[in-house]
């Protein structure tokens, strides 16, 4: 079996961090403690576990943070090395009662998966993301599949998953759509955490996968009075508009746009707009950086909410406005169960519905074989700039990248489109970036 293995090596993580600081996101991939490894089939940790062969596995922003050595040390106690990255997974079950079924893996490793009985209060309530026994039980520590030494992860051609983690994929849902279910579930959970009330004005900061799916989630599960998306790149702006943003602005336009939207006053000091006195009701920070959090605090109204959706690390931000304006800072991690008007629903069930309703498979922009993981990770690190949103691994396919639109059953695909003009960077992938 092949897998992209992450080993514990502080010097190499430090080197990756330095490289990323110079080269930008995913810049650490060449020096990070990351390699394509062969190994025996992973043993099943218990009776309700199955082997799963991934079909597609996405590259998430948190994966990039890991590769760049930028993840918070907070996670050290809840991951176990070596681990295999990849938690956005659609695959086929190899054995057990679901053998042959196409499934999406819900990666959070809660009490049930860990063999802990009775489960903690959060898991008992279906809120697996808030599990209080994380790191305990018969599994090695690992908050999710993809960070646990015992389970493997999606960047491989085989992992193990607990029956409670598996969601059968409807036949009509394509793999491209199914691989979007996990990030969409994160976005839906964030939308519920934000508890946007009808008519409230909302900013979604960041228009990568998480930002765009959050937009879709807000449009489907809330009734904001105005939904402003912040997007850097043309494809992101286009997608943000298509997924329901009322207004799409560039990062440097945000403060002015919010001031206009809310008719806020501003405390000017030589400039016309500086330090808004009002702001929007809720900001969804789908980036998780120091600057995005500072921007969030700059445009949220007194008494408003900032929901951290993108995974932050150690950030440096002036919290004086949070204090003085009594802003609520809320984390939104993973998923579980949501209180909907129709009762309590599994976030993943809601995500399956939203992926289909909002046609979120269009966010999948490029596929790579495992062998070309460094290219794939670099592409994901510069996705927006290169006109892409979600980059995925296409497991078990030929090492030739498959063109979007080509039949998924093709095992030795041939390129049927006219080749684009070669570039020095990636002669074939530029075409792969084209969105539907």
């Amino acid at each position, binding site marked *: 079996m092949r897998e992209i293995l992450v080993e514990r090596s502080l010097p190499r993580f430090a080197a990756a961090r330095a490289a990323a600081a110079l080269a930008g996101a995913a810049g650490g991939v060449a020096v990070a403690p990351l390699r394509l490894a062969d190994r025996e089939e992973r043993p099943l940790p218990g009776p309700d576990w199955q082997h799963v062969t991934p079909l597609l596995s996405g590259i998430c922003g948190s994966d990039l943070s890991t590769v760049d050595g930028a993840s918070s040390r907070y996670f050290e106690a809840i991951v176990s090395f070596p681990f295999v990255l990849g938690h956005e997974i659609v695959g086929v079950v190899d054995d057990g009662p679901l053998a042959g079924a196409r499934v999406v893996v819900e990666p959070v490793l809660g009490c049930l998966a860990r063999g802990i009985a009775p489960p903690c209060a959060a898991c008992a309530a279906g809120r697996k993301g808030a599990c209080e026994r994380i790191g305990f039980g018969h599994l090695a520590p690992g908050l999710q599949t993809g960070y646990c030494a015992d389970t493997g992860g999606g960047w491989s051609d085989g992992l193990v998953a607990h029956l409670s983690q598996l969601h059968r994929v409807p036949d009509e849902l394509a793999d491209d759509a199914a691989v979007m279910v996990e990030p969409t579930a994160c976005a839906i959970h964030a939308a519920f955490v934000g508890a946007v009330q009808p008519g409230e004005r909302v900013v979604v900061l960041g228009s990568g996968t998480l930002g765009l799916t959050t937009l879709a989630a807000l449009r489907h599960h809330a009734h904001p009075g105005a939904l402003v998306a912040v997007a850097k790149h043309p494809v992101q702006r286009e997608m943000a508009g298509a997924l329901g943003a009322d*207004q799409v*602005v560039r990062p440097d*336009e945000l403060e*002015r*746009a919010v*001031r*206009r939207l809310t*008719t*806020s*006053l*501003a405390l*000017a000091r*030589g*400039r*016309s*707009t500086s330090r808004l006195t009002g702001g929007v009701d809720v900001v969804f920070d789908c980036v998780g950086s120091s600057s995005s959090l500072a921007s969030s605090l700059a445009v949220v109204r007194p008494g408003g909410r900032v929901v951290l959706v993108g995974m932050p690390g150690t950030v440096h931000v002036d919290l004086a406005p949070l204090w003085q304006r009594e802003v609520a800072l809320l984390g939104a991690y993973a998923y579980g169960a949501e209180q909907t008007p129709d009762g309590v629903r599994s976030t993943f069930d809601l995500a399956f519905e939203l992926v289909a309703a909002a046609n979120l498979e269009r966010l999948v922009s490029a596929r790579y074989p495992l062998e070309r993981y460094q290219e794939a990770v670099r592409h994901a690190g510069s996705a927006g700039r290169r006109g892409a949103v979600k980059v995925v691994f296409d497991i078990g396919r030929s090492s030739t990248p498959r063109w979007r639109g080509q039949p998924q059953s093709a095992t030795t695909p041939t390129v049927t489109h006219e080749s684009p003009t070669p570039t020095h960077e990636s002669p074939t992938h530029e075409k792969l970036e084209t969105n539907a």
Partner: protein
Amino acid sequence: MSPRPGFVLEVDRSTPPTLFWHGEGWRLERLPVGSRVVYPPEPHPALADPDAAIRHALEHPAGDSAPLSSLLHAGAKVTIAFDDVSLPLPPMRGPDVRQRVVEAVLDAAAAAGVDDVVLIAALALHRRMTDDELRHALGSRVFDAFAPHGLLLQHDAEDPDGVVHLGCTDQGEDVEISRRAAESDLLVYVNINLVAMDGGHKSVATGLASYKSIRHHHNVRTMQQSRSFMDRHHSELHSSNWRMGRLIAKAGVKIFQIETTLNLDTFPSQFSFLQKREWEWSLRDRATFHATSTALERTPAAMKRQIFQSIRSPHALTSVHAGEVEAVHDLTLADVHRQQLVHVDGQADVLTMGLPYICPYNVNSIMNPILVACLGLGYFFNLYQGKPLVREGGVCIMSHPTPWAFNPVHHPSYIDFFEQVLAETVDPLEIEAKYEESFATDPWYVHLYRTSNAYHGVHPFYMWYWCAHALQHLGQVIVVGGDRAAVRRLGFKPASSLADALEMAEDVVGRDPTITHLHNPPLFLADVT
């Protein structure tokens, strides 16, 4: 020797390249053989003794007005309103004509024993002037006598207690003007009539009015029905102002109008080539042109702006009339026409123009892209009477760097208009319907207009409406040498050279189009038949 009138040159093989203004600089362009270049008239001579002419006008008023001295008496409440920083262009060398007139009026008031005199800069919805700008316009003597005592005001169209509603015209137009002006025993208005649009009833009905009142004529419909707004008798903008002005008079507001005209001596002697015909450039002109062009190429944009904004025009007073508004304005218009009218025979397929660094709304500021559009398609396009210089469906080619740059203090709402509104649509009617009110009533813009040096929140809309007639008339607008993204945001086509622009124009108007170039400024008014 009397000054030569304006002139239409037909370009032939011996014609030297033509000067095009290009923001803080200029370009020499070879126009195709057969193109026409319309040159302004030469400056008319200045009045030999402007102060005497002013005093004479005040005591020999036009129309049914009594002489100023007989309208002033001890105990009278007198307000003197004057045109703001948007006139003249470029700002004139001291003493400014407003200083001369205001000093003469104050002398008369003092002689009559009038104590209650207030000066008001007639801003309409323009930005407040700085102290330096006020001092330049009025002179230190006036400024120091009034400003420290709070007697030098700037009109505040958003002061609910400072404006008074005088009624509605028979067309339902609200007339709401400065309370101080309306409640004075005498309102003296001091104009600079740089172009034919200025003055008349527009002075008070716009300059001292509120947004509620101004919106009745500063709108898309009015601008599209003004052919052009430089021709008072074919301008709906003026018709509306005239209705308002007559209502103001009927409401009992006593106005003593003073209008002044300036000659076309626009640029100081070191830039004399700018107001000469190219084949008449002397060796010194050519040397100056090349030296300044070379130096400007190496000068940072901000410094270039500073250099050009420091230019003071040698404009000189050519006439002054005072008295009843309409009678005065008729005399003034005749003088403006005498200096500025140039007869042009027929329209062209393509109109070219070089846009300079300044327009009425960027004095001591940045010519942002919206102002570029307004200067070209609002002001220059409308410098006609009869019919436009370019045929319907024709192409307008403008030369300007059109930087994506704004002065955030002067033009805060412009930035949002450019970033938010024009990103969505460039259709003036759609913009007016969807966005005007929210910008006009935005409390932040209102605050900045009233307390800072910001144009009113609605002002960028008016700039866009000013373009409405041209946008309706033209088949395409091309900007040569502009910031491509900014030009596209305006809805125009960018071109890197005049040759490229002319080739692009052929896609719209066909091959071998007729071309007319507006060799402007100095400003003139084309009389197109």
